[in-house]
């Protein structure tokens, strides 16, 4: 078979095979539907869920939390990264805190944020931002530092002012790496929002998952996981598009 046909056929075939094996296993081994429901039960549950307003309300809450947290993380990460790259003493002073914060599993801070910011949206946004911050920040720091001395010389020769240099050199030079960090960050922001919803509150897809678990509504629980995956996919794809749009020259984009 030609390569291109294989590329279309093989993923479909492997997913179908996986679903068939799943169904066969659940039937022959007589697995309890409370442990692992068959695929068709999950599809049926999903079908009913997407017709309820409730699911979309919860999904919207999670998206708002994750996107807000992500935006805060990008704003803080890019500005701090730039300042520390340009003013090394700031980096030296901040270094112990950065190392310490990087070593703490940020998830462990979630209960603390609930304590500080309550059970509403705010605490989830803060958790999402805390998780999403580091990939953006460390990529931004590296990217803003890695301006080649020869490129700086060009702007010195042209007597460019700092603002001109930032917009014509530092920012476009850093953008591909910063946006690669943002791709990772948006996934982490989703995780942060959901963990926050697990711990406290009565809104969001994370809350919905826990609620279904407590009712032993296992197919619905799987349904929530599928929805979460789809939301994550949409956000990740959006940032990826953004990266390719903003840095069409970069090797990571794959066009000359």
């Amino acid at each position: 078979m030609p390569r291109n046909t294989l590329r279309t056929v093989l993923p479909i075939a492997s997913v179908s095979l996986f679903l068939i094996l799943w169904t066969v296993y659940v039937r022959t081994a007589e697995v309890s539907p409370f442990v692992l429901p068959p695929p068709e039960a999950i599809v049926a549950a999903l079908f009913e869920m997407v017709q309820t307003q409730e699911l979309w309300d919860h999904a919207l809450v999670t998206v708002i939390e994750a996107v807000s947290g992500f935006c805060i993380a990008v704003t803080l990460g890019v500005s701090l990264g730039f300042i520390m790259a340009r003013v090394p003493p700031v980096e030296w002073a901040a270094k112990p805190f950065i190392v310490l914060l990087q070593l703490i599993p940020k998830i462990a801070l979630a209960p603390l944020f609930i304590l500080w910011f309550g059970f509403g949206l705010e605490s989830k946004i803060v958790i999402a931002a805390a998780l999403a911050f580091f990939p953006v920040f460390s990529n931004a720091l590296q990217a803003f530092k890695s301006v080649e001395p020869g490129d700086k010389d060009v702007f010195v020769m042209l007597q460019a002012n700092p603002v001109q240099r930032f917009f014509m050199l530092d920012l476009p030079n850093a953008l591909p790496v910063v946006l690669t960090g943002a791709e990772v960050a948006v996934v982490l922001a989703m995780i942060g929002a959901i963990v926050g919803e697990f711990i406290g509150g009565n809104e969001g897809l994370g809350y919905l998952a826990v609620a279904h678990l407590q009712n032993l509504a296992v197919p619905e629980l799987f349904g929530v996981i599928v929805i979460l995956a789809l939301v994550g996919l949409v956000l990740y794809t959006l940032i990826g598009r953004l990266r390719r749009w903003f840095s069409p020259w970069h090797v990571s984009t794959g066009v000359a």
Partner: protein
Amino acid sequence: MPFDAQVMDMEIQVSGLTKIFGDGPGAVTAIENADLALQPGEFVSLLGPSGCGKTTLLRIIAGLEAPTRGGVEVRGQSIWNGKTRSTKATRPVSMMFQEPRLFPWFSVLDNVALPLRVAKVDKKTRRDRAAQICETVGLKDFLHHRPTALSGGMRQRASLARALVTDPQVLLLDEPFGALDAMTRDALNLELMQVCARAKVTTMLVTHSISEAAFLSDRVVVLAPRPARITDIVDMPFDRPRDLDLQQSTQFQAMVGLLRRALSEGH
């Protein structure tokens, strides 16, 4: 000719220039007590082996590196006041680097127009001017390409166009074609010579190629390493315009031999 009378019309005046990197026992003298004067429109090459401080000399004139002692004047204005570069004195100076130093986020046209954009020239004027200069260096068909899509020779053409777009009075070239193959290099050198003559720009070229220095220059400044210093300044008595056939002439070969001896005596 009395030295003082000459100073008045000099485009570039380098006097007692010394640059020492580091201090204490680890200090390295990159250039020692260099004196040099360029007349307007003159093409002068700095010729020497690697490590003789020729690039450092160029960078001090460009205002990219502060001298330890001595000074540089362009059109009677000091480039350096102590460790501070004068933005006014460096304004008529343009520099082309070893690497093209084009920015992949701009098109070829926008790269060439960059100096005008920084100088806040309006969009239409700077694009027209950039397109015009691109045409003179043979880039007419590549204006809207990305620099990454160009060959090495084409990139250096764009880099040259960017250096000339502001109509500089002084053009500094740091081994601009060193990384190119011999044929492209010959072609570009020929064009460089024509463009510089047309623009009446005072040019200073750093090179380690003897024939390149002899072919392009009115005068060749020979430098020696350890300690880095100027050992000789040799006139190149060839008529202009010059073409590539000049390099086959016995007179040219004789000058190349002379420069080679001057270089080896410096060691």
